[in-house]
Each structure stands twice: as C-alpha cells, then as structure tokens.
C-alpha cells in the first residue's frame, strides 16, 4: 500500500465557551505510515488526547472539529457521521485508553466483550467469533486463553487487563491504533512489557500507531517518529533519534533536560520556568515565548510555523551559535 495510513492536515478542534472559543488543537498536521509508531508528547492540556479523540470522533461535546482534514487509508473521515463513522471505529481505527481498570465493562465476561466487537465488524458466526477472540487473547499473551475467555475483568491484574484492552482494540484488525497514555496507569515493571507487546503486534501486522504519552522514556523505547505538542500546536516533528538526540525547539530541549536520568547522578533536575499558558489566555506570537530562554522580539509578535514535514516551529531553532544566545 502506498501513502500514509493516517494523514492529518491543519486539524483544529474548538470548544465554544462563555469566554470565547478555545482551540485545544490548533492547526496540526502529520502523517503516520504503515507499521509506523508516531509518539505524541507534551504536557497535560497540550492537546495530545484531543487530537486522538478527534480522529476517532469521540470528542465530548461541545468540543468539535472546526477545521482541517483527517484521512485514513486515503478516505477522508472528518466529515463522516453516525453509522458510517461507527463502522470505522474498531474496524479501521482502534483505541487503547489510559486506565485498564476502568476501560473494561465490569459486568460482562471478557469473551463476550471480544465477540461482540468482532461480530460488530466481521461477517462471522458466533462460534467463529469466539475462536477469534481466543486467538486475540493468546496473541496478547494471556495464558490459558481458552478458559480465561469466561473470566470477568476483576479477575485479571492491571497489566493483564491492559493486554485484554489491547486485544479488544486489535480484534477487528484496524490499520491504525490510537494509544492514549497506555502505560501511565500501570506499574513501572509492567509498562515495558505492554510497550513491547504493542510494538511487536503492530510491527507484525503493519498497524500504524499514534502513541500519546508524556513519558519521554516510552517515546524513546517505542516510537519511530515523535511530535511534540505545546498549547495545541506542533512544536517539533521528526525522527525520534533526531528530536530526542538533538532537539531543535527550545521547548523540546527543555523537556529533554527535565527528564530524570540515572546517569546524571544527584545533580538538580532542570525545570522549564513557568507553566503552559491557559487556552483562554494565550500570549501573542509564539505560545512558548514567555518561558523561552532564547526569545527575541519577533517571538512576541509573530507565530513561527512548522515547515512541511519535519522540523521545529521556531524562529531560532537550536543549536545556537554563541552570539544569538
């Protein structure tokens, strides 16, 4: 297949409020190719999850897509409604939520939750769907899938439940998975397992993954490319090696500097001064300028744009020569 699985162009999400219109996602564009894992990082409220919810059309009203285009497998989906959109969910776009303890219905057996999802999308008999459900559980590493299919969610541990959630998201073989903080609610020891599992399954099937997280370690571990979001905009986009190894946007640089590393010893952890501005109180020009150590007068009046493709949305991208800094 040629072309990206997911292509987002100038996506804007708006929330009308009494104090005016907020834009939690403001004109972002990126592609995710077949078998590629795109990490989306940023602070809470940067618009990471909003963008994911917009793709699968699960924005909570009054938030809505106000502009831009979303293409999945060459089909434009941002204008689809009702049943047409429902058919895509699960079938073309799967989603994994943050907290496996709350994403499974406590009153239904996991087998029933799997088969109902399979039957909603594939023309199979109930028995075939059950076989497929067992296979799906087996693939995510649930031991004794044939018996466990009759278990209820509370009979699994947190890590096992997230495996079940992944099985549910993948059981109708979508070409795109949106994983919204899939490891945040898990024990550190389980996080790596889940990331490795997600990575392996998507590599084997060629599934594209939008991996939303605020954990730079997860990005470094799993993602091929990374998009850094700040106040609803893309700050930087590029291959993980480039962005994490040699950040060009001062914000990315600040984020990397604030990641605790054992190798740094007991040195004081760097902080980015200040906090991300509220959406109803964005500064003029570049939203990051009040916190940026390199800000110049142009940063306070004009909005830097991200050139098509990879790069940083910054007038003075790093590395700086001595006189600019």
């Amino acid at each position, binding site marked *: 297949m040629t072309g990206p699985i997911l292509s987002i162009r100038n996506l804007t999400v708006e929330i009308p409020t009494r104090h005016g219109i907020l834009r939690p996602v403001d004109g972002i564009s990126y592609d995710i190719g077949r078998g590629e894992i795109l990490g989306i990082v940023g602070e809470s409220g940067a618009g990471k999850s909003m963008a994911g919810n917009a793709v699968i059309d699960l924005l909570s009203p009054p938030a809505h897509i106000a502009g831009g285009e979303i293409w999945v497998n060459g089909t434009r989906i941002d204008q689809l409604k009702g049943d047409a959109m429902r058919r895509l969910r699960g079938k073309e776009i799967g989603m994994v939520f943050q907290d496996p303890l709350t994403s499974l219905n406590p*009153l239904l057996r996991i087998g029933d939750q799997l088969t109902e999802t399979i039957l909603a999308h594939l023309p199979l008999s109930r028995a075939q769907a059950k076989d497929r459900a067992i296979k799906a559980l087996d693939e995510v590493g649930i031991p004794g899938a044939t018996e466990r299919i009759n278990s209820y969610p509370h009979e699994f541990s947190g890590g096992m439940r997230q495996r079940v959630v992944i099985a549910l998201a993948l059981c109708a073989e979508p070409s795109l998975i949106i994983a919204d903080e899939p490891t945040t609610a898990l024990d550190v020891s389980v996080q790596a397992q889940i990331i490795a599992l997600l990575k392996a399954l998507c590599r084997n099937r060629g599934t594209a993954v939008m991996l939303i997280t605020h954990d730079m370690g997860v990005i470094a571990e799993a993602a091929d490319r990374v998009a850094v979001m700040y106040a609803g905009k893309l700050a930087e986009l590029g291959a993980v090696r480039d962005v994490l190894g040699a950040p060009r946007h001062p914000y990315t640089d600040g984020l990397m500097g604030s990641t605790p590393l054992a190798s740094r010893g007991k040195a004081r952890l760097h902080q980015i001064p200040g906090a991300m501005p509220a959406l109803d109180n964005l500064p003029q020009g570049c939203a990051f300028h009040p916190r940026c150590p390199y800000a110049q007068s142009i940063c306070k009046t004009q909005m830097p744009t991200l050139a098509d493709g990879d790069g940083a949305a910054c007038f003075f991208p790093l590395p700086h020569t001595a006189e600019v800094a």
Partner: protein
Amino acid sequence: MLAFVIQRVAQSVLVLLVVGLVAFSMFRFVGDPIDNMLGQERTQADIDRLRTTLGLDQPFVVQYVKFLGGAVQGNFGVSYRQGRPVSDILMERAPATLELAAVSGFLAISIGIGLGVFTAIRRDGWAANTIMSLSLIGVSLPTFLIGILLIYLFSVELGWLPSFGRGDTVRIGGWTTGFLTESGLKALILPSITLGLYQMTLIMRLVRSEMLEVLRQDYIRFARARGLRDRAVNFRHALKNTLVPVITVTGLQLGSIIAFAIITETVFQWPGVGLLFINAIQFVDIPVMAAYLMLISVMFVGINLIVDLLYFSIDPRLRADRTKAH
C-alpha cells in the same frame, strides 16, 4: 453464597419476630376489644366468658408464644368483628391487592426504566425535558389527590372508566381474578396508575441519573471506540451497570406499593387487604391488624431477600468468594 443466604434468612426471621412482637403488643395496649364486641347490654359473666374464649386472660408471654405459633401456621385467630378466621378473610382479599400491586409494579418498572433510559440518552432533547418536567408532578402530588383527579377526569367527566370497585371477577380455585373480564380490566386501569405513578417517576429519575453517570465511564467510551452499535452500548453496557442501585430502590418501592395500597384502595373502594386494614382500624379489629402487619413485613423481608440475591446474578464481583471456593 450459601452462607450469605443463610445469614440473610436468619436476619429476616429476627426482623419478623420483632414485628410479631409489635403486632402482638397491639392486643395488649390498643383498647379492650371486648368493649366493642359486646353491646351495651353485657354482663360481667359475658365479658369473662368471651375473654376466656379468646384467651385474653392468659399471661402476656403465653399469649405471645401462642400468637407466634399460630402465625407460623397461618393462623391469626378470629376477627373480632366478622367472627371468622383472619386467614380466610385475608385469603379472600389478597388477590385483589396482589393483582393491583402486580399491574402497578409492572407499569412502574417498565415505563420507569424505559423513560429513564430515553431521557438519559436524549438528555437535551425537548421530549426528554418535557418528560422530566412532568415527572415532577408524579413525585410531588400525593397519591390520593392523583386518584381523585383521575376519577374526576375519566369517570365523572368522560365516563370512560369505573370510579370504584373491581368490576366482575372470575374465580379460579381460591383465587379471584379481574384479569379475565372486560370490566375487571377496566376497573384496574385507574387504581394501578394511581398506585404506580409515584414509583414510576421515582424509578425513571433514578435510572436517568444512574445512566448519565454510567455513560461518562471509560468503558462506555471504550465500547463506542470499538464501533459497537448505540443500542448495544446503551442497553448492554450502560443499562446493566445502572441496575444494582435501581434494583435496590425498586425492590423497596415494590414493597411500598403493596403497603401503600391502603390509600389507593380507600380512594377507589378496592376490595383488597388495604381497605380491610382501614376498616379493621376503625373497629379495633386487632387480629386483622396484626395479621396485616405480619403479612406486609413478610413481603418486605421477602423482597429484600430477593433483591440481595439479584445483586449476585448481576454483578460478578460480588460472586468473587464463591468462584475462589470452587
């Protein structure tokens, strides 16, 4: 689970013993029934003879044990007023009340849950808002007023439905039913609406608020994200999760449908146990009152027991200890 059932049954028996004590205390403390039973022309010999016949001359404890022993066998003594066994009178009257309560309960549950789900899903629609506003009437108007208004509208003004009584009934074994005749069914309409309206609106508002709560949960979003149809999400996933609190309240409400049938039965002169109880109070017919009290408490306790067992069938998390045991 068996241990749980045994424990609950034991608790129920204790509750019934206490209610039995209260019911029995009425014999001792609510006036002297002999006064009512014998006319003005009584002699002391008449009084003594009747007192001995009814066992009222025996010590309190002996009378209580006798009362309990009789109650367990369904023998509540003889009605002071009608001079017939209380159990016979209750058996005669019970079908009328139970049929009325069954129809009211069915209406309350089916319409209540249906409208509750509807108003939760279409939460901002005009129809849902209208229903919610109207439901305030059901919650706030007293039962007797609703009954009287219905009688005024459908019996007096429109003349469509009877204003009192059960209509024609058919006798099947020891049971008289109004379900099989047209006049019997017609006579059921107004009383069952009157009796069930409060419960219906209560269930509806409860289902609505529980549904709104559940619809916000992650597993509902996840169900939508998997592309399940709205019907499956709303009914299979959401409604089932609202049922535990709904069943708790509904169970208690079904008990009160039977208990509060007194008011509806009085308004519509419905020949059930509630009307029997009101008449018994007027005549200080203590055996009837005591038996009624026992009957209602048995029903409440029984319904509560069923509700507790229903929890187990709905929520697998409560069955956890049993699964481990096997």
